[in-house]
């Protein structure tokens, strides 16, 4: 089997699973209980906070554990909007955000907020000058992703952070779900105020994630209850999930440090081999994130290619899995100005550190054959 859909989700690491299982069985206490079981869970939770803070180079009190990317993005965007609406009701985001950002913004529009959806250039990158022009006195939030999930395009987080840093009533949120562990981001230095990370994209478990909230930032909590996690997110902490998440973070961080060029090598090989297939057109520009690559085979229904590859035990995807159920074209590909022929035939390959060069060679050979077969009926 060749699994090239790592931006949809990844295979959980077996040691991460072991931690989850062991904690679920042995240390199932509620961290808020004061007996020994509670104390153990509390100690685990504290260590998890320390490890996450250490990896992200932030303070332990700035870590909020969540159920994943969608929750992190919702807490960040709605939490900031609702807590700071007295200072302004304007939000800036982009046209290529993940649905959990896009739809959260649309919900806020329904209750009286104003949202600017910035366009991107043909590489899928937001222009910093557009951000600067869009900033207004009543702008309370700028939410821009780091790595786009369909294209792999890298957004100018650092430059946007520079712009927002000096504004006391504007916060900067970064959806780092696709970037963490692959393309480094320096939260403190780059002026990021809030940052979303998800566990299942980094060989952790579904239902785990983390939101960084810079010290001193007030958030309107989406969940009220027992005031866990400094009241940012009530609800008994998922200790097993949380520990499994910080373990996955540590593991992928080590991989990133030790194999800095590996994903770039895979990316280059893929580009070289796909270049030789005449009907393939590249949608992802050069010098973007190494682990996501988007291309079109115009004239061929992408679903059919996916299924044909699936029969050969090769798994890639159309668009992002999160919006794949909608029949229309890719909004991201449309946003970079591609023709309808290409926006409707986009395919995405996404790597993890577990993939190999052999797999890429086999994939490219198989794709060539599939296209040949299908050209008899489609093409």
């Amino acid at each position: 089997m060749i699994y090239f859909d790592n931006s949809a989700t990844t295979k959980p690491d077996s040691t991460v699973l072991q931690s989850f299982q062991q904690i679920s069985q042995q240390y199932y206490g509620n961290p808020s209980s004061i007996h020994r079981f509670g104390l153990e869970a509390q100690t685990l939770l504290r260590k998890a906070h320390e490890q996450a803070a250490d990896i992200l180079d932030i303070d332990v009190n700035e870590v909020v554990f969540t159920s994943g990317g969608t929750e992190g993005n919702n807490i960040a965007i709605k939490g900031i909007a609702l807590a700071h609406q007295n200072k302004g009701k304007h939000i800036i985001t982009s046209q290529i955000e993940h649905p959990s950002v896009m739809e959260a913004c649309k919900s806020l529009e329904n209750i009286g907020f104003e949202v600017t959806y910035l366009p991107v250039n043909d590489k899928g990158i937001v222009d910093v000058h557009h951000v600067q022009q869009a900033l207004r006195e009543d702008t309370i939030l700028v939410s821009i992703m780091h790595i786009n999930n369909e294209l792999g395009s890298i957004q100018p987080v650092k430059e946007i952070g520079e712009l927002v840093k000096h504004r006391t009533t504007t916060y900067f949120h970064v959806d780092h779900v696709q970037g963490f562990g692959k393309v480094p981001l320096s939260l403190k230095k780059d002026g990021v105020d809030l940052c979303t990370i998800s566990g299942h994209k980094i060989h952790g478990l579904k239902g785990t994630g983390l939101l960084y909230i810079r010290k001193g930032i007030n958030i309107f909590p989406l969940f009220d209850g027992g005031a866990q996690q400094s009241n940012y997110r009530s609800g008994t902490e998922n200790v097993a999930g949380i520990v499994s998440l910080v373990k996955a973070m540590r593991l992928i961080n080590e991989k990133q440090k030790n194999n800095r060029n590996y994903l770039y090598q895979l990316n280059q090989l893929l580009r070289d081999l796909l270049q030789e297939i005449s009907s393939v057109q590249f949608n992802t520009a050069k010098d973007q994130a190494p682990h996501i690559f988007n291309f079109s085979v115009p004239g061929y229904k992408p679903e059919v290619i996916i299924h044909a590859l699936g029969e050969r035990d090769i798994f890639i995807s159309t668009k992002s899995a999160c919006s794949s159920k909608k029949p229309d074209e890719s909004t991201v590909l449309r946003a970079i100005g591609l023709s309808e022929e290409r926006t409707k035939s986009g395919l995405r390959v996404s790597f993890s550190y577990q993939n190999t060069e052999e797999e890429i060679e086999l994939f490219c050979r198989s794709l060539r054959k599939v296209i040949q077969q299908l050209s008899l009926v489609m093409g």
Partner: protein
Amino acid sequence: MLYDHILIRYGELSLKGKNRKKFIYQLHENVRTKLNHFPAVKIHNARDRMTIMLNGQEPTPIIEACQSIFGIQSLSLAIKVENDQEKIKAAALEALKDNQASSTFKITTRRADKSFPIGSQEFNHVVGSHLLRNTDNYKVDVHHPDVELHIDIRTQATYITSKKIKGAGGLPVGSAGKTLLLLSGGIDSPVAGYLMMRRGVKLEAVHFHSPPYTSEAAKQKVLDLTKHLTYYGNQIKVHIVPFTALQQKIHREIPHGYSMTVMRRMMLKISEKIAEKENILSLTTGESLGQVASQTMQSMHTINETTAYPILRPLVSMDKEAIIRISKDIHTYDISIRPHEDCCTVFVPKAPKTKPKLDKVKYFEGLMDMGDDIEQIMRNLETITLTQASNNNDFDALF
């Protein structure tokens, strides 16, 4: 890599005549233990300085580790070269270029090796003009230089350093004996322990545990605090005293206004026994004058009377704010404020005497049937040894 070693300058111990050897030995031991997980580095001592050969190790984490070792006045990254003019000039140039965002420099040569052919003043000029010729935009400024290059010409070799990094000061832990710290879990006692270590004293700790009135969490808190202190003192033994039975008896048999005073006296008595057993010659507390009922002058007098051991109170004259500041600096504050009861808070009477009279205390104590309570406590002591490397629990594999 440019720098090949770190130069360590001794603190006050340079002053300590005859003990000097012992101090240097102790400091060497402490540095060696601290740098245990950097197996490549080698440590050499000389009479007035210590050098850590990096052998390819990244210097930053080593410097950070050394900054927590008492007895070190300052540290510098250094280059060691032969006593050869050309080699010294080349190395000085590299050291200067290593300083970013600087535009002025000054050179200070010390010539301990008088056989070196050029005098210090003249050599300053020789090296200075070499640097000016081979760099752009640098000027000499002898009053307020951005970079101060030290060239130290000794008989064996020449050392070139450009930055002085502040060390922790104080004396090497272990060079001034041992003390037994009464560790409650509050803010003060860890700070008291830290200050004693700073004066070269090795710590053991005693904690009074009264289950079920105090929780496992309170005990864990004390172990976590101790673990933090091992960062400065490496190995620390904690003696956990099973205090419940005696505390209940005091509560039952001593008039409430005096129970706190008697309890404190018992704690000192038990601590003294432990100190005796462990060959420790003093007790240390986090008491600060006037903070609470037991810390008035009268209370201290009455409570102190029960032991002949010196009780060291490094915080006695400090304001709470100053104590909190240190506890934040040494990162014990966040642990100390965890909300767990300790044995002093659970049994504290509504109105403890702030001026307990010694004769009354002795009278009440005399009425109490002590039996072999203290012997029993001593038999059931739990002793836990923590080091920088030890874990308070076995959770590490899960992470």
